[in-house]
């Protein structure tokens, strides 16, 4: 290659880069949490193997890209393996990444790694799963999710449709999971004794497994002739189980849960034949990651930190009032996307089809 040709190429490339930079600068106004200092960021997932996580990861990346000061974005998947999650945290820091957003699925087990990285001067933002420790000592900031808030929202809706009390069935994930406990606390803070929980305390264990959910619901339907509301923190896993009501010759009852395209479409197809089937959802919470990224970027680039430290999932669908949204269904897109998320449904489809 001749020198002049190299020069020409370089000039062209530079021009292209300049143009695209100028273009993006015109399109996106820099958010307040994005400071002037250049920094690199890494998103460390404890377990990346489901569509919810893929969309969450893609959302985090989309959020980080809003800030032009972020020069590099890295991702690592702990694959549900605590040791790998810990080594991911350490190796990202060793590579010189400035800010780490950590989905600490392993809980306090990752705290020592977070602490050592934080002490080495990195910005460390664990989120959604409690890892113990405290902000400023073990990590920069913890961005929690308020599951209690979800319980309160469900409880308020239940009160609005059943003012005189009724029978509630509450389903959550593995035995003793803290998310289910927090949600129950929220529910109970709103609902009085006239609302009776007919499941074994604190909740029916489903492991968030659709097959087990189906078996559990089968037993509950047969045992309880009157179920007024089902509360579940993983709505989409109920879709295979709800037709069981039809088998028993009953209407599907009201459902307070989290959103998912498959669930919205199921409601759209079945609400006419099931007069009692009202639906209320809170956002599944993919955007929790966005708040965590905002914090990490703000701290690393010298931007303004967001006001919220806890992500409160907003209400999403309400089939009774249509507020904030009526039930949504995108039949043309996969069932495994979340219309409540900020990311566009089409981009979500791309994220899970990767």
């Amino acid at each position, binding site marked *: 290659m001749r020198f002049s040709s190299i020069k020409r190429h370089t000039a062209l490339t530079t021009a292209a880069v300049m143009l695209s930079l100028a273009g993006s600068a015109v399109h996106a106004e820099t958010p307040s949490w994005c400071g002037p200092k250049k920094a690199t960021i890494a998103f460390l997932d404890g377990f*990346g*193997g*489901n*569509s919810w996580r*893929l969309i969450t990861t893609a959302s985090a990346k989309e959020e980080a890209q809003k800030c032009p000061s972020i020069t590099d974005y890295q991702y690592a998947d702990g694959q549900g393996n605590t040791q790998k999650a810990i080594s991911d945290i350490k190796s990202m820091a060793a590579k010189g990444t400035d800010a780490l957003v950590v989905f600490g699925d392993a809980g306090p087990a990752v705290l020592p790694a977070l602490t050592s990285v934080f002490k080495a001067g990195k910005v460390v933002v664990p989120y959604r799963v409690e890892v113990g420790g405290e902000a400023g000592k073990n990590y920069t900031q913890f961005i929690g999710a308020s599951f209690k808030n979800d319980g309160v929202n469900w409880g308020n809706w239940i009160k609005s449709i059943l003012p005189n009390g009724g029978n509630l069935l509450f389903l959550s994930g593995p*035995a003793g999971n803290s998310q289910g406990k927090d949600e129950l606390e929220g529910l109970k803070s709103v609902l009085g004794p006239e609302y009776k929980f007919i499941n*074994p*305390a604190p909740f029916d*264990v489903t492991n968030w*497994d*659709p*097959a*087990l959910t*189906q*078996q*559990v*619901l*089968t*037993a*509950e*339907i*047969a*045992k309880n002739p009157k179920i007024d509301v089902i509360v579940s923190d993983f709505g*989409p*896993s109920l*879709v*295979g189980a709800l037709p*069981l009501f039809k*088998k*028993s010759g009953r209407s599907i009852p009201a459902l307070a849960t989290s959103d998912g395209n*498959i669930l919205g479409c199921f409601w759209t197809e079945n609400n006419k034949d099931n007069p009692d089937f009202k639906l209320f959802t809170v956002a599944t919470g993919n955007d929790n990651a966005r708040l965590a990224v905002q914090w990490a970027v703000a701290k690393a680039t010298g931007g303004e930190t967001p006001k919220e430290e806890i992500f409160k999932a907003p209400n999403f669908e309400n089939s009774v009032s249509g507020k904030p949204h009526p039930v949504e269904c995108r039949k043309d897109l*996969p*069932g*495994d996307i979340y219309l409540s998320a900020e990311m566009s449904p089409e981009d979500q489809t791309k994220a*899970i089809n*990767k």
Partner: protein
Amino acid sequence: MKSTGDQMGAEAFAQQGFHIPLTREFLTVLLTTSALIVLCRLFAPSSIAYGTLAGSLPFAAILIIVGLGQMLVVQQGGFDLSVAGGVSLAVVISTHVPAGDSANLLPAVLLAVCCAAGAGILNGVLVGFVRLNAIVATIGMNALIYGGVFAVSGGIPRTTTALLAAIAGGDTWGIGNSVYFAIAILLVVTLVLKKTVVGRRFEAIGANPRAARAVGLRVRLHQMMAYVYAQLLYCIAGLLLAGITSQPTAFQGDSLLLPSVAVVVLGGTSLTGGRGFPVSTAIAAFFLNQLSQFALAVGVPYSAQTIIQALALGFGIAVYSFR
């Protein structure tokens, strides 16, 4: 010479075939299950109501099919720990490959069957010909199959196609279609095992491989085929499971490993190999399934549910030990 040997082997075991329905194993599992039904009637009548049975029998059907696969392997003195992988692979292939389009279901099913046959042959060659320990070989194979599961799905669940949901999850005369699949498979396995030459040889080899070899039976081939049959059955179970649960996870087979061995043991098949008891295995699968419905219907806490199931299983096994 070889054909004479085969005949001798078949004749030697032919007599037992006519007593199958009245074996002690069959009676034991039948009595235990009847006792459970009485208990259900007394303490948790809702667990044997029509709605419950309609909802839970499809899962019993899955367990029957998986249990029969495991039984065939156990009959050859082996163990197949690649159940979880086999079932999960069929689930993800039948949901991810068509990606919601029912027109692509048939190619996906054929692909799943081919993969199952491939995994079975590999298992079989490793155990039957290379003489690896069955537990080691099938654990390795399970990891390999899970590699396939991740390659196909990336670990992500997918919604079932409408066609598969209608075939596997649908009803005929008020009973889930998967139950008919299980009954048909049970009939085929029983008839082939008990009434055909191939089946008789298969049992003879399981009971005493050395004697079988001495009379000229192709021991290694039959041992290998046990793993192939097993994988094909896991594949069918996986396809049905994908249809029954509308959004199956990529790890749907995981919870089937232990029950698959439990039903074989409860059904009376010796872990050292030999005769198989398909009908007893099927009843044992119904028993295990009904037991969890009983525990759920009684409404005890989750911890107690697990304990009840473990106790019943221990009791079931003890019955065989003390007879």
